[in-house]
């Protein structure tokens, strides 16, 4: 069965620190990849996405992610975090073999920022 693994469950960073998290998936074919963010008390929002083309994608709020097909990974990065980045981050994969295929979510990574 397809699965999505996020390696960090809870990360605490100081403001201005850099962020890089791993996300791996277990599907060998074409995939669409996503990072979603859920700020405290708010609903899920799309942070960034990869469908095809340049494997380095840029999203909102200075986030970017790199798709490495050979490693089945889609790692999230941000060079300098801010207090407002406090949120839960979910990696998600949509196997692209069917327009009806569902999105599978990772377990999430909670980011806390030290002021």
């Amino acid at each position, binding site marked *: 069965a397809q699965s999505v693994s996020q390696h960090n469950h809870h990360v605490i960073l100081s403001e201005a620190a850099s962020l890089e998290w791993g996300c791996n998936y277990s599907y060998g074919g074409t995939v669409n990849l*996503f990072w979603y963010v859920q700020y405290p008390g708010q609903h899920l929002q799309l942070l960034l*996405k990869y469908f095809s083309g340049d494997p380095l994608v840029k999203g909102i709020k200075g986030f970017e992610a790199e798709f490495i097909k050979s490693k089945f990974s889609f790692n999230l990065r941000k060079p300098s975090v801010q207090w407002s980045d406090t949120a839960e981050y979910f990696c998600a994969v949509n196997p692209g073999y069917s*327009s009806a295929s*569902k999105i599978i979510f990772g*377990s999430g990574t909670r980011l806390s920022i030290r002021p």
Partner: protein
Amino acid sequence: SAVISQKPSRDICQRGTSLTIQCQVDSQVTMMFWYRQQPGQSLTLIATANQGSEATYESGFVIDKFPISRPNLTFSTLTVSNMSPEDSSIYLCSARGTPRESSYNEQFFGPGTRLTVL
């Protein structure tokens, strides 16, 4: 993009009762989904709501417990039946756009319904 609203936003229910959650999308969408997010956990897909046919349920979820309706391309309901405290969770409606839209493979989420069962 699609804007999704849900009603109610939260509810506290007694064991053994049922609650129906409504999901409204501001545009016609091809696919609608219902997820559950238990405290501190990720999203678990309950079912895909199919317009004009029965919903497709994921392993561990059954129609008798979570009946779903989808009468048209913008609306769906999820009923949580015969509730127990283990059903306490956030229930999320989600939608994917029409194939002609560039955002087709994106999935949008509603604000969720926070359910507490006593």
